């Protein structure tokens, strides 16, 4: 699931910056959306 980060976040070996879009597994995506770290981003946007 594509999500856009609203806060910097360390995932795996990378620190994702604000505004970056990443495709992550749906479970973590939902967690990050719920806690305000990221927002849903439709694919190919």
């Amino acid at each position, binding site marked *: 699931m594509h999500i856009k980060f609203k806060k910097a976040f360390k*995932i*795996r*070996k*990378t620190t994702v910056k604000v505004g970056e879009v*990443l*495709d*992550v*597994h749906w*479970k973590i995506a939902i967690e990050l959306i719920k806690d305000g770290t990221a927002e849903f981003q439709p694919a190919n946007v």
Partner: protein
Amino acid sequence: MAVTTTKLDGQVLKVYIDTVLLGYVTEQSFDISANMIETSNKDSGKFAEFIAGRTTSTLSVSALHQFDATEGYKEMFADITAGTSVDVVISNENAGDYEWSATCLISSLSISFPDDDVVSYDLEFQVTGEPTYTVIV
């Protein structure tokens, strides 16, 4: 969404390493096999007898190499050299369908640089512990 009721195009099933999509994958497979312990003896007669032994699973992935992949060759290289275990999920992220999940060690990483062709690499994951095949909720 509901369970997919048609045959699947393999393109929709993606590989996630510790929750991050592995980039530029061209193919992946999951294999599971069970050791068969033979218990045949002089009393068995014509037909061999077995009991189930340990189950072993492996995952294989092929991908194209691109230096700026968020999750790609460099992360796999770091994991195999450090002996780090990773959680691998193969999923289409469609609720109602199923996904494969396992904790794995990378047992081999092979990259090739052919003339007049794309650079690609192959990964072999050894599953450690029990893999799961569970419905996506």
